[in-house]
């Protein structure tokens, strides 16, 4: 029933240098799917004309020639610059702010404090963040005042003339301390904040969201267990590391409309948020599309744009604010540090039967950067990993502290929790005397299993994915040195849901124009839309144009959550079919024939028994003014697909026992994929995620001491460079099954997650050092080795 072949893509597809192994498994009978599966998967061999082709990203020319306009590039006549004064204290009462001297400075056009602004809070979901601190500051880097001046140097100079008197308050930096009975309360009024989710309130001090995911019955599970293991892990904070810092430009025109250019991947949402933050109707905000210089989950907030608005309103000039990278590292929205405690019940024969997880996230001073309705970190629900566990309870606490507020970073929560799960799996296997791989395989998720959030999975491909990673790696083979080790890790990543909007029209020049509110943050999303539309019709790719016009839409989920190809791609596929149908009607009218007889062939419309044919341009001309040639649609997709995506990695390292330094010798990343729409973008997501994962695991840390970030520029906060990348082997376990158009799946947040666990496990295999606290630095390994030598371990 199942044909299986292995095919070396080297030279066959576009990739020639990177070794990619493609394992295809095609089910020939569509009816294999269980009834519970919502999506009908039609499996067929790749026979597309544009789908699957390594097409250039359509905005490429603008990007390689420097013509692509990003927010900081926007130049408007009369534009001035804003700079913010930030709090030097982690927690203090603002006694007074004296701006007089700054206002006097030549070239300064306005100085604003909270007293000059409406008393309004903002945030991506919960509105808990002041635009400027009003009576209290809650972290080092919080904005207290803002200056607008003719140039940024003058604005910067004026900041040092503002006198702020503070009265220091007791501060709390560690979430565990913040949860104690007498800890200082950061937001005593949390429950009254707009959009604060009541369902997740907690009575524990400073906990602003407590989410529980539960399947089975934990007590029962532990009763079945022969052995119970407790492990606790801690993880650190990572900055998204986009090269473009946050920027905003606002120009308030004479009609009071605010024109907004912003580094935001959800521009329609930004329009609504800005309107709320400054107290104007949403239609008074016009969002202009700009390129976004890297998102990785971090660019969904308003950041400085409300300040730009107020300064523009005050001065009558367009105002630009661009954060310095120092401001990014001090007051961006980095990955949440976490403490993950796992209690695992296992039977004598090595079955994981129960898992209790407590995940505590340091939320920082505000929760306003969190974009999910429950205002917590979604990845916490992966605390059972890729292992089918019948009885699970996960409690995730998001806790206010006097630290920089956390935000979403690619696979938010997934990395933190997966590191804990994959480390603990090995600890348990070792304690049981079980084989690391066999123990995992015995417990892997299967079709019909429930995830901790109650979601039932179908078409689970984790076994094949893990097997593919193992086969392509050196697992089980002799090692090349005494301090070489290998580690396994596996993860899953859901395919996101949300609201999609679009407009599609046949243009007079015979092209099909696609308008989307979603910006292409670099993932190639617009090219994916182009391919989906072109394939659906089918049209040559050049006949489809894609434009981002967020200003045409009132609501939209924007980019993020591994959702775009699925929800937006699906929408455009349906809209293309609708438009095609409309076109057929127009053609039928033009050719005076039955709609059913209309034929589209070789780029021309004709009909059975009709001599004449029409080009698309002729159809468009004929149909000029017909509303049906332009379709607009909104579609809310809340159905989380029952197919998910799996990743398995095997990483081989060598540890220098004298220094603790880790070198990655080999990295195999195996992915369970559907149809690949554009291999260029697809592989790019895998590559970028892996390297970002290595950064998280070993290199990057937003280091803090008493709430003060000490890594405040890219000389101290290091990002991996081109010389730091290891040999990478990608394995694609392909099956044309996926909920997104043409049976595709999500890829953007897949490859980053397992990296850290695999490295941690490899380090243990190499030198016997088990890392419980991230990042995995040479220094930690060194001291652990020292301790070992002294028989401390």
């Amino acid at each position: 029933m199942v044909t299986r072949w292995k095919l070396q893509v080297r030279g066959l597809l576009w990739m020639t240098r990177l070794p990619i192994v493609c394992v295809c498994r095609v089910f020939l009978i569509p009816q294999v799917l269980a009834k519970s599966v919502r999506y009908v998967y039609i499996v067929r061999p790749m026979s597309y004309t544009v789908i699957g082709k390594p097409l250039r990203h359509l905005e490429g020319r603008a990007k390689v020639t420097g013509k692509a306009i990003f927010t900081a590039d926007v130049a408007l006549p009369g534009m001035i610059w804003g700079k913010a004064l930030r709090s030097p204290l982690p927690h203090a009462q603002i006694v007074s702010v004296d701006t007089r001297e700054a206002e006097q400075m030549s070239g300064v056009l306005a100085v604003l404090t909270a007293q000059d602004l409406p008393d309004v809070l903002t945030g991506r979901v919960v509105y808990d963040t002041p635009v400027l601190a009003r009576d209290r500051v809650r972290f080092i880097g919080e904005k207290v005042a803002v200056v607008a001046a003719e140039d940024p140097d003058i604005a910067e100079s004026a900041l040092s003339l503002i006198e702020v008197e503070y009265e220091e308050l007791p501060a709390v930096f560690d979430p565990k301390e913040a949860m104690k009975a007498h800890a200082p309360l950061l937001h005593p009024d949390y429950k009254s904040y707009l959009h604060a989710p009541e369902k997740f309130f907690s009575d524990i001090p400073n906990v602003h969201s407590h989410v529980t995911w539960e399947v089975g019955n934990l007590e029962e599970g532990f009763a079945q267990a022969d052995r119970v293991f407790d492990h606790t892990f801690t993880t650190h904070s990572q900055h998204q590391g986009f090269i473009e810092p946050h920027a905003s430009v606002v120009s308030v025109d004479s009609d009071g409309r605010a024109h907004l250019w912003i580094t935001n991947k959800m521009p329609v949402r930004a329009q609504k948020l800005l309107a709320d933050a400054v107290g104007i109707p949403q239609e008074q905000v016009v969002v202009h599309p700009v390129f976004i210089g890297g998102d990785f989950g971090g660019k969904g907030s308003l950041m400085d744009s409300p300040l730009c608005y107020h300064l523009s309103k005050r001065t009558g000039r367009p105002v630009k604010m661009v954060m310095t990278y120092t401001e990014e590292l001090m007051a961006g929205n980095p990955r949440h540090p976490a403490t993950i405690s796992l209690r695992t019940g296992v039977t004598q024969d090595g079955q994981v039967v129960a898992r209790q997880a407590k995940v505590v996230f340091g939320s920082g001073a505000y929760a306003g950067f969190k974009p999910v309705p429950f205002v917590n970190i979604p990845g916490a629900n992966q605390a059972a990993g890729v292992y089918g566990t019948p009885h699970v309870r996960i409690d995730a606490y998001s806790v206010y502290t006097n630290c920089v507020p956390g935000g979403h970073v690619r696979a938010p929560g997934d990395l933190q929790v997966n590191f804990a799960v994959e480390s603990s799996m090995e600890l348990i296997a070792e304690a049981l005397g079980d084989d690391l791989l066999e123990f995992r395989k015995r417990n892997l998720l299967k079709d019909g299993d429930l995830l901790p959030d109650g979601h039932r999975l179908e078409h689970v491909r984790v076994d094949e994915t893990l097997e593919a990673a193992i086969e392509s790696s050196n697992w089980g083979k002799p090692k090349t040195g005494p301090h070489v080790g290998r580690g396994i890790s596996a993860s899953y990543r859901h395919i996101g849901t949300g609201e999609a909007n679009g407009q599609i029209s046949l243009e007079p020049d015979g092209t099909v124009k696609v308008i989307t509110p979603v910006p292409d943050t670099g993932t190639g999303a617009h090219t994916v839309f182009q391919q989906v539309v072109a394939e659906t019709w089918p049209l040559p790719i050049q006949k489809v144009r894609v434009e981002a016009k967020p200003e045409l839409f009132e609501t939209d989920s924007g980019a993020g959550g591994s959702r775009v190809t699925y929800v937006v791609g699906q929408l455009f596929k349906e809209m293309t079919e609708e438009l095609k149908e409309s076109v057929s009607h127009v053609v039928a009218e033009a050719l005076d024939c039955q709609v059913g007889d209309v034929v589209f062939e070789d780029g021309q419309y004709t009909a059975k028994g009709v001599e004449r044919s029409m080009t698309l341009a002729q159809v468009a001309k004929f149909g000029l003014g017909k509303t049906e040639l332009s379709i607009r649609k909104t579609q809310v997709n809340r159905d989380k697909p029952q197919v998910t995506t799996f990743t398995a990695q095997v990483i081989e390292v060598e540890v220098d026992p004298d220094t603790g330094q880790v070198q990655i010798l080999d990295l195999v990343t195996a992915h369970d994929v559907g149809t690949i729409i554009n291999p260029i973008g697809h592989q790019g997501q895998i590559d970028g995620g892996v390297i970002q994962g290595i950064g998280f695991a070993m290199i990057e840390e937003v280091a803090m001491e008493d709430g003060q970030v000490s890594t405040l520029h890219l000389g101290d906060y290091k990002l991996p460079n081109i010389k730091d990348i290891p040999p990478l082997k990608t394995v694609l376990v392909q099956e044309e099954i996926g909920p997104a158009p043409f049976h595709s799946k999500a890829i953007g947040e897949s490859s980053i997650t397992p990296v850290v666990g695999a490295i941690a496990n490899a380090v243990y295999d190499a030198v016997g050092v088990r890392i419980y606290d991230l990042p995995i630095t040479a220094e930690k390994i060194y001291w652990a080795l020292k301790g070992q030598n002294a028989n401390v371990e």
Partner: protein
Amino acid sequence: MNFCQTCSIFSSRRKVWDFLMDMKNVGLCLPGVEDMEKMDEDTYQGVYKIRVGPIALKFQGTLHFEIRDQEQWHVGMRVEAKDRRLGGGVRARLDVDLVEQGPDKTEMKVNLESHVLGKLGEFGQPVMRKKTDFVLQEFARRVSETLGSDGGDEDL
């Protein structure tokens, strides 16, 4: 940032106490402190200069006695100073404990908790830490030297 310094002074605890109660003396023992001026019984105002390579920092601020507990032989001081040009400052808490080791020998324990704020705190923290450590060592050394010492313990 936390710093500790302990030294033995060949002088009675009473004498060391009296010495420390005169802020002028304290100022003289802190390298970089200038123009110490008494504002009221517990508060002094002064200038503190420190150099890190080409960077010259000039802090203006106050030193305030918060605790003068002769029963416990404990002094607690709060220091707040700003460098306006750079837009940064220092906040510190200095605690001194005196332990009698003999009729003419006193152990002085100095504990400093200091925070470098604003622009100053943003860069060069490691070197600032080193410099602060030096200032504290120097303080202990000068107090011992002025009142008599056995050379001090190099106990950090």
